[in-house]
């Protein structure tokens, strides 16, 4: 039933993907190391120009060496994402089912979505490439954690998961989570960058080369918002699809099972984020904090609810 050699290939690809992502992190570090020294005088003018000041574009006079390292990092990330997709494809064909039937597979798929979202953003808006290290470092950490603590060997699905709704509900939950993952990172970067810009505007010149090379606070805020705008309907759909599935699996469409409760909390938090962005006094840093809390809720919902509490969503496959 289970194709053991394919399953072993999948596990090997997982290690390769982690290796490639780690190399990408190293390359992103090299890009920073070889980057142009911060020129405080120019910087003051640029950032003091107003809140919508464009990123003091690192590209304009980027040394060729840094640029090369940046491209190497992007290339490694792309190859890593392909191998990462291979992990899921081989897992799926080894087991003859969708490769998201336990926490290991779910977590792996979420991280893949996050990497793909980052790649799409970085290709469409080149200045966003510079948040790469802050996406890839958590990606490597998550992958190592998933491999060490959530690993479950390839096996058949439990009876409760054998439903067409697995393809609908779990797939959209993965998409939503992966998108929120990148969004949360963009908001963290925004919080760091906006404090930096405020200091620069106040005449202090904190010469942090890393923060200097980040996209402008406005661009980060816009990225965080657009990803939530994209992810929120997907997450809403995932919750609704879950309710429809629960109605045919558990006898009721909503029962405040711990997973349902936390999915609801996450939904409310992201709804609050979208409202906060249009409410006077909540724009900027307060709303960015809400987005960070939202990501925290998503991670808590994955780890705590499956590993500590008992509920109906106990498909973790953990022993």
């Amino acid at each position, binding site marked *: 039933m289970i194709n053991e050699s394919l399953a072993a290939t999948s596990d090997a690809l997982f290690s390769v993907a982690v290796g490639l992502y780690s190399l990408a992190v190293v390359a992103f570090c090299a890009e920073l190391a070889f980057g142009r020294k911060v020129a405080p005088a120019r910087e003051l003018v640029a950032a003091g120009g107003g809140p919508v000041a464009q990123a003091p574009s690192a590209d304009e006079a980027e040394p060729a060496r840094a640029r090369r390292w940046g491209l190497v990092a992007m290339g490694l990330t792309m190859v890593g994402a392909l191998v990462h997709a291979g992990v899921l494809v081989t897992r799926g064909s080894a087991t003859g089912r969708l490769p998201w039937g336990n926490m290991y597979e779910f977590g792996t798929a979420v991280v893949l979505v996050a990497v793909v979202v980052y790649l799409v953003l970085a290709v469409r808006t080149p200045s966003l490439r510079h948040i790469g290290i802050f996406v890839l470092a958590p990606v490597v950490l998550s992958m190592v954690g998933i491999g060490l603590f959530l690993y479950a060997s390839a096996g058949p699905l439990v009876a409760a998961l054998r439903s067409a709704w697995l393809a609908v509900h779990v797939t959209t939950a993965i998409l939503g989570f992966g998108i929120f993952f990148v969004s949360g990172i963009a908001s963290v970067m925004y919080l760091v960058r906006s404090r930096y810009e405020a200091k620069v505007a106040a005449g202090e010149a904190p010469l942090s080369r890393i923060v200097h090379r980040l996209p402008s606070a406005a661009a980060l805020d816009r990225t965080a918002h657009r990803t939530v705008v994209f992810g929120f309907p997907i997450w809403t759909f995932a919750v609704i699809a879950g309710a429809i599935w629960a109605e045919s699996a558990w006898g009721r469409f909503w029962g405040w099972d711990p997973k349902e409760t936390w999915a609801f909390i996450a939904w409310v938090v992201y709804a609050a984020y979208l409202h906060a962005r249009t*409410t006077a006094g909540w724009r900027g840093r307060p709303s960015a904090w809400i987005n960070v809390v939202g990501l925290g809720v998503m991670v808590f919902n994955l780890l705590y609810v499956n590993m500590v509490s008992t509920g109906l969503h106990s498909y973790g496959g953990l022993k």
Partner: protein
Amino acid sequence: MTTTIEKPAPAPLPPSRPSPGRRVAATLLRWWRSLTAMRTALILLFLLAVAAIPGSLLPQRSLSQSQVSGYFTEHPDLAPVLDKLFLFDVFSSPWFAAIYLLLFISLIGCVVPRAIEHARAVFAAPPPAPRHLHRLPDHRALDTSLDGAAALDAVEEELRVRRFRVVRRDGKHGPELSAEKGFLKETGNVVFHLALLALLLGLAGGKLWGYEGSILVTEGDRFCNTFQQYDNHSEGALVDAADMSPLCVTLDDFKAEYEENGTAASFTADIQYGLAGSASRNTTIGVNSPLRFDGDRVYVTGHGFSPVFTVTFANGDSFTDISAPFLPSDTATMSSQGALKLPDVPGTDDQLALEGFFAPTGSVQQGVLTSIDPRPLDPQVALFVYEGYLGLDSGLPQNVYSIDQTQIDRGTLERVGQANLSLGESTTLDDGTVITFSGLKQFAAMQVSHDPGQVWVLGAAIAVLAGLLGMLLLRRERVFARTNAGSGGAGTVVTVGALTRGSADTAPRFTALTDDVAAALARRARTEENPRS
């Protein structure tokens, strides 16, 4: 003697003190305004999220009564305090209800005026052009040799092709044009919020008029949809037992299938169902595929084994093939526990009870029976036999899956034998009674649910999603144009400005629009110069 006390001069009245009624009205209005402010809605949203947290961290009565009792035993001091705060019934607690009701009142106060204003805007003409078009986020000035009216004609045509609603006015600052499209964005917003209200109403209706009942059914047995028959049931305040659909279900056969590695593959129950008094039909239900019939749903929520026993007494009387469901204590191996009570033993006042442990695939090590497989490959029971008074008529409710320990403690119920039996084996008690493990049946835990609100909730949820997509993905665009005489009186300057909501990157779209307008102006100008070509 009289003393005149000088009255203090009356303090001057405040200029115009409003009547108490007005003051109350003003206060209420102020409260209403702050309740319906976005800031309040945000705080209520957060409160709702925070209030839901204890519901997932503490055991809840609605999910597992036994976990709540377990918590009471573990924390005897803390639990009663938490209970007073409704922390074991968070989602039906008054404070949780208070938060979501306030949130929904706030939402009504926010969305109803918005809906009315939006409805007006749909039928009203686009607003007049602002005075300074060059202050709009997107703006551009175009020169043309056409006169003002012809130039605006060209702009209007371009906008109408793009499905804008256009109106032309003779403004204070020259002939002008206003155009608008993208009402669906605001419509989506209004639909989203109203659908949330509809969803809550559907949920509440389902809770009031819905019920559910659960029952263990052994193969061959039948039950009907009445509260008397269910082992457990819960129902909304407005459920009338007389209105319950007279559905009856017979469990013919239950099958559990497993993969090679022991993973549960499927649970299916072959059932007959029908309304009482009419012909019944056959179907198979299982995990993820309930029976839906006449507004009710029938689920299989669990399963287990009912060992069958034959008890033959010394005087020759016997009970043949009697069984009781044994509840699984571990679903991975289906090791189960249960009791069979015989209150009416012929020829004696003593009652008899079998209590024990059942293993579908038994393995005895050092006298202890354990189960090693969920399939009934080698069914075995480990039994204790009791004789005496069971306490069934004591008036206190008893657990049917175990015998009453207090009767054993009192000495009124006495253990008279014990045995490990494989299928077909017997044991003989000292008084000559023979107990045979004669067979095995399966039972299914079945649940009947009725929720008249759930179709409404589904419809509302779809509307929520549709509204959300409209609100987040569409944009509302307003375009204004005004013509002025060109410098030196030659030709016309057309100033175009645009205001877009719901999109960050509007410049490329605006450039495309104005490029097309410029091309149209040039085309018209050519046609005007050479009308025959």
